[in-house]
């Protein structure tokens, strides 16, 4: 036992003391906020220096009064179309719009003449401008005023409530939020298992090719070495993961704060304090309306069984890792180089990939279907599938069954892998195929 601890410690330090660990641990959480920051920056900058284009308008219908829009500045010209065209040619303006006489019910014949091809957005904006104008004309014709128009705007939001058949408890829920939670957690488990599983394999291959392994197994049992390595690397992963969460959260909030945006929690708090401080009912109400969506999200968050989700996530996170980790160790023990590992790696990554794909195709779309049930019960796919379902509420017996099977699953894979590993690590230069692996597995030692 003491020796396993030594191995765990060594494997942990080997990786944590590397520069690359420091680099990836710090850089990865910076990448997302950095991309976000850059995008926000570009958007903000662009809106600051919006390219307002000057457009000449020859209005033969005499129906319009032109006000500058956010994209265009209008310059009314008069005279014949031909003269206007000639005048436009010598100007630096963006375009010349010709409006022929038209019926309000059938606006036709609008033409834009320009030196360069307008972009899709510019055309959309210009068309939108005229559509708005004509619509307003129509409204006046039908004697509809702006107030009536505003009153016509409708926005219906269905509040989701799930009723637990057993307890009769009703809960507010959000399918979007459930989808999002399942999506993120599922991907995290998939990535963690794959990245760190391959690290185990790499570590085993390194020990085998550097020939240090025979010295080590003269001091410890091969099984202890394998287990120490798997657990040591798992603790590196957990540490990295915790740092990522802390850093991502910190950096994201500071990036948002820099651009004057606020995290949902902060907005909520400010909202409450403003309501208390400010007597100006009107402004509060409008702001409250703006923030209704956010408030609802925060509210739905609080309705999710967060502690349970976190506990289940950690369990399947580690369980899935242990299940696959020992298999990766067995593959590493069987081969002499990372290239040779490919043929054996595939059958291991396949069920993991199936779990990952079905997360999107099946589990997230319909967490309560029987396909989702089976995917989240079978140990090879359950780590990814179960966390994909968990936010939608999984009956406790299913959870218990899945957890139990996962434990049996990883005990089984660890046992199988251990038997291959103990023989494999001492075999160099052998051509290995599945028959050889089976022979190793059967070998008594």
């Amino acid at each position, binding site marked *: 036992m003491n020796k396993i601890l030594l191995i765990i410690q060594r494997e942990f330090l080997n990786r944590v003391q590397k520069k690359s660990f420091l680099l990836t641990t710090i850089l990865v959480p910076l990448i997302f906020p950095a991309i976000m920051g850059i995008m926000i920056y570009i958007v903000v900058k662009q809106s600051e220096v919006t390219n307002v284009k000057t457009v000449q308008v020859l209005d033969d219908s005499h129906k319009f009064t032109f006000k500058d829009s956010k994209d265009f500045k209008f310059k009314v010209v008069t005279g014949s179309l031909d003269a206007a065209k000639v005048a436009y040619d010598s100007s630096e303006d963006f375009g010349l719009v010709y409006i022929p006489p038209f019926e309000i019910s059938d606006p036709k014949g609008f033409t834009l003449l320009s030196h360069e091809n307008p972009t899709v957005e510019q055309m959309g904006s210009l068309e939108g401008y005229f559509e708005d104008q004509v619509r307003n004309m129509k409204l006046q014709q039908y004697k509809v005023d702006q107030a009536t128009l505003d009153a016509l705007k409708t926005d219906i939001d269905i509040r989701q409530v799930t009723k637990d058949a057993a307890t009769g408890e009703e809960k507010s829920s959000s399918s979007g939020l459930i989808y999002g939670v399942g999506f993120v957690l599922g991907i995290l488990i998939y990535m963690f298992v794959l990245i760190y599983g391959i690290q185990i394999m790499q570590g085993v291959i390194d020990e085998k090719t550097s020939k240090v392994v025979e010295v080590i197994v003269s*001091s410890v049992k091969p099984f202890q070495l394998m287990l120490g390595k798997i657990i040591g690397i798992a603790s590196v992963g957990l540490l990295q993961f915790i740092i990522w969460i802390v850093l991502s959260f910190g950096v994201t909030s500071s990036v948002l704060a820099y651009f004057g945006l606020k995290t949902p929690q902060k907005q909520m708090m400010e909202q409450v304090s403003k309501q208390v401080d400010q007597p100006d009912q009107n402004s509060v109400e409008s702001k409250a309306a703006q923030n209704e969506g956010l408030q609802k999200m925060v509210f739905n968050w609080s309705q999710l069984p967060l502690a349970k989700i976190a506990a289940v996530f950690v369990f399947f996170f580690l369980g899935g890792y242990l299940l696959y980790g020992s298999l990766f160790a067995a593959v590493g023990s069987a081969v002499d180089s990372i290239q040779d590992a490919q043929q054996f790696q595939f059958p291991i990554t396949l069920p993991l990939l199936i779990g990952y794909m079905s997360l999107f195709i099946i589990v997230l779309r319909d967490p309560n279907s029987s396909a989702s049930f089976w995917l989240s019960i079978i140990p090879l796919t359950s780590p990814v599938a179960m966390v994909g379902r968990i936010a939608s509420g999984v009956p406790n017996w299913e959870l218990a069954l899945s957890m139990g099977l996962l434990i049996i699953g990883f005990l089984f894979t660890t046992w199988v892998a251990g038997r291959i590993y103990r023989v494999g690590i001492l075999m160099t230069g052998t051509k290995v195929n599945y028959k050889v692996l089976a022979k190793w597995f059967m070998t008594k030692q």
Partner: protein
Amino acid sequence: MEALSVKNVTKRYTNHVALDNVSITIPQKSIYGLLGPNGAGKTTLIRIINQIINRDAGDITLFGEPLNESHVGVIGYLPEERGLYKKLKIGDQLLYLAQLKGMSRAQALEKSKAWLKKFQVTDWWDKKVEDLSKGMAQKVQFISTVMHEPKLIILDEPFSGFDPVNAKLITEEILALRDRGSTIIFSTHRMETVEDLCDDIALINKSKKILEGSKKQVKDQFRSNTFLVEHHGNSFSLDPSRYEIVKQRLIEGDLYGTTLKAQAGIKPNQVIRELIEKTEVSSFQEKLPSMADIFIGLVQGEDEDALRRHLQEV
């Protein structure tokens, strides 16, 4: 009490028998040569002693106790296929390996520093193995094998990869360890190592032990009372009922070399006395078989008598 006693150990694999009823006895504080061609079963036996693999049958006792897990720290093992963690610093490497053998961290720290000092390489502590030459790495490997002061040290081809200077250094350390009470097993093909260092030997061939004993016993066993004489003038006659002239050749001028075999019971002194009367003797020595000759002869399947005859003629 022996350092190690292996009794009737057998190890079978699916397609072949790696060790067939092998027994060896290794006296304490000796240097024991485990000889045999590639694939004979030496490594299997060593791995069984190191408890890396299990035997199918047979008993092993180490310093009087049946072999068990607590013996891991008693044995120091330098495998033929050896290596260290390439990216790990020498200091961390030595500490780790020693702790796996059961030393405390403090002990390991003290010992590893002392050994690096002894080899005058204290500045290696923070170096990585990948930055060292092969010979330097071998030294570190040797330190890691012996720094927990094992009572039984098993060295599989210890000198491969060493230049003569370092080989001498390591040889001295091995002898010093033996003098301090360690028992050493050499597994090797190098017969000069065996001639120079080993007190006892065992020869394993095709999974079976075919020879065991002290170096002197083994040589005596294949001794045939054959002598090499260099003398001036080619003609001398000896009693053909007691001596057989095996071979005679001209060395240079009138200096001849004669191989002669005396009948059992005739002592070297007596041979010299008789020769002096007959010819001008320039040199005289008993022809003892070399370990290499015995090794090659037995491995090639000669029985003892055939080998003895063969050895006279070489």
